[in-house]
């Protein structure tokens, strides 16, 4: 095999074309199988994620390893159904230990999970090295289930995978409402008389089944990532559970396509790590660029708010300067403004420039002057600031010294309705606690 590839190595591009022409039936089957697995593991993993049992999938995948090895030792065959049943059995034993320990001993769930996971994994590795020392047939590919190897999957593997994943998806579709109810509010579900135990068992069964058929493809070590990363990424995109699950399924499918293809191009590459790395990249992209909850969006919003606040602060300062001169002087320069409000000169210039762009301030050789619209806005801000100061002073009984810094923040978010409500609740609405007049309402600001 190794010699043959050296002699006539086709180029990567040719292989890629071959892959997408679907001339290699086996590659097509593997692709379909892994896409199905990506979808079903992501969706069933979504429920584990929502129940805050994210790590259970990881423990179950590790717990499957000794089952596979035992099945091989007992039956000396690599028949997928035998392997599947072996893995299912030991995964379930693991599941019951994880469930039993916290309920009946002082061990907490996280410790139970960690103990079970590492014990089963160690047991599986022991059996694996024992098998590799034996003189038996067929043992060569067994170690592949540690990290997954799509290219090594047989037709029988794919058939089983297809049935199992379809079974999982069908169950999720049927029991979606009940699974969601239990994930949201278990005690309430119990109070309705719903057999929570049955659905918890069903969910565990579906997770175990997805994990076990995924071992060939993704491997024991990384299976948890395929269960959880898609839904964690999808959580950034939507607030609707059905939509989250669909997005998670699509991300799972996409990562399956990427990793199977790489496994086809470079058969020595394990599939699992590739799948997980592509999922993690998708997660990263979602976290940064998701339209509503992405970090980039939050950053931009924060930046816009900061800009708005500094513009409004400068307007207010200009108003106070106007007020100090009894509204006789209209032009002020940078030192005037800085004398009243500590702003770095660069920020101040930038802010004045953007106020100029909005036609709120005009610059001339005499200095800066507010336009009529600018004056209106500045008056309204001052009004809100002083109304809030009066409110805090009168109703919350804060001292005039305390109220100022509070009002500095609140002035930017008060709306017209709240302004009117404030006015209605104040006894004296003509001057603030510092004795400054509260300007009259400007009406609707354009």
């Amino acid at each position, binding site marked *: 095999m190794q010699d043959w590839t050296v002699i006539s190595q086709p180029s990567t591009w040719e292989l890629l074309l071959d892959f997408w022409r679907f001339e290699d039936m086996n590659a097509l089957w593997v692709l379909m199988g892994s896409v199905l697995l990506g979808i079903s593991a992501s969706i069933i993993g979504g429920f584990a994620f929502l129940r805050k049992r994210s790590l259970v999938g990881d423990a179950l995948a590790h717990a499957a390893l000794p089952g596979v090895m035992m099945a091989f030792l007992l039956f000396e065959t690599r028949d997928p159904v035998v392997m599947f049943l072996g893995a299912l059995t030991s995964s379930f034993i693991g599941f019951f230990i994880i469930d039993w320990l916290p309920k009946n001993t002082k061990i907490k769930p996280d410790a139970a999970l960690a103990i079970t996971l590492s014990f089963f994994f160690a047991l599986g590795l022991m059996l694996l090295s024992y098998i590799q020392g034996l003189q038996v047939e067929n043992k060569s590919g067994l170690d592949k289930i540690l990290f997954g190897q799509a290219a090594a999957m047989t037709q029988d593997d794919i058939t089983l995978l297809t049935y199992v994943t379809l079974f999982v998806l069908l169950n999720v579709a049927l029991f979606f*409402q009940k699974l969601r109810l239990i994930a*949201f*509010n278990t*005690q*309430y*579900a119990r*109070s309705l008389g719903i057999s929570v135990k049955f659905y918890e068992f069903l969910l565990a069964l579906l997770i175990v089944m997805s994990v076990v058929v995924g071992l060939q493809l993704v491997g024991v070590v990384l299976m948890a990532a395929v269960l959880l990363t898609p839904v964690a990424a999808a959580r950034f995109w939507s*607030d*609707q559970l059905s939509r*989250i699950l669909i997005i998670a399924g699509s991300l799972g499918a996409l990562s399956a396509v990427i990793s199977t293809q790489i496994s086809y191009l470079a058969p020595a590459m394990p599939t699992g790590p590739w799948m997980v790395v592509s999922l993690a990249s998708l997660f990263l992209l979602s976290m940064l660029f998701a339209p509503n909850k992405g970090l980039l969006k939050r950053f931009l919003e924060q930046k816009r708010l900061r800009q708005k606040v500094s513009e409004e602060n400068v307007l207010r300062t200009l108003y106070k300067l106007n007020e100090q001169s009894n509204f006789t002087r209209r032009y002020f320069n940078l030192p005037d403004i800085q004398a009243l409000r500590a702003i770095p000169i660069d920020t101040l210039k930038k802010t004045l420039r953007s106020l100029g762009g909005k036609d709120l301030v005009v610059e001339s050789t005499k200095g800066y002057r507010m336009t009529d619209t600018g004056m209106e806005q500045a008056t309204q801000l001052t009004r809100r600031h002083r109304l809030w100061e009066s409110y805090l002073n009168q109703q919350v009984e804060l001292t005039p010294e305390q109220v100022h810094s509070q009002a500095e923040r609140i002035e930017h978010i008060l709306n017209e309705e709240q302004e009117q409500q404030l006015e209605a609740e104040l006894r004296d609405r003509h001057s603030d606690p510092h004795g400054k007049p509260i300007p009259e309402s400007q009406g609707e600001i354009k």
Partner: protein
Amino acid sequence: MNPDSRKAPITVNNLNMRYQYKPVLTDVSFEIPEGKTIAIVGPNGAGKSTLLKGIMGLEPLIEGEVKFFGEPLTKKRLATAYVPQREEIDWDFPIDVMDVVLMGRHGQLKLWQRPSKLDYEIAEQALKDLQMWDFKDRQISQLSGGQQQRVFLARALAQQASLYLMDEPFAGVDVATEKAIIELFKNLKAQGKTIVCVHHDLNTVGEYFDWIIFINARLVAAGPVETVLTKENLNKTYGGRLSLLNDLTETMYRTRLNQAHEND
């Protein structure tokens, strides 16, 4: 059934509950009347929520039994609606208001069944009764505390039960919600339904409720407001626990004496 022969909505007999070895409730027995609003009152850690959960079978009983209209809970499930404490839920869960209220219909839906048009209409009415219809498409994470409480009440209302068990429905809600809950109580009472609430505000208990159950690890008093809302009962309820009773019960649980005794 003839109304006179109807059994009490809830009969609690000799109920005992514990947390590990610490006794939470000891020998609680009472019976409540139908068509009344009933408050469970007691200091923090008195076992109010635990009592409600024990009644609903959500926490195990060490001893004792609870009857609903003279029958075990399994036979009266549909007649009973439970409203959990708001804090017990992850309000970041991706679900909207309508879907939460529809959960109230799931006690009657079998396995994979989805809510029908009728279920939607019932949920709609429940939301309207609590002035939450405008919020039906809202994500629950975007609701205020009072609105969250109203969604929970609407969900219980959608169960169309005759007995409502609520865990602190008035805790941390705004004035509008408080009014909505009182209105709801009135309507439910007019239909002859029974409401049991864990309540912590002594100032309003006489105004909102017809009946009071005072507990502090054991039953202090149970009866109509006019007779049991007395200084003496308040002192007994809030004046600290009977420490000897508590200590000895704990020792009993630790030594598993109650089991040893039964095997004699």
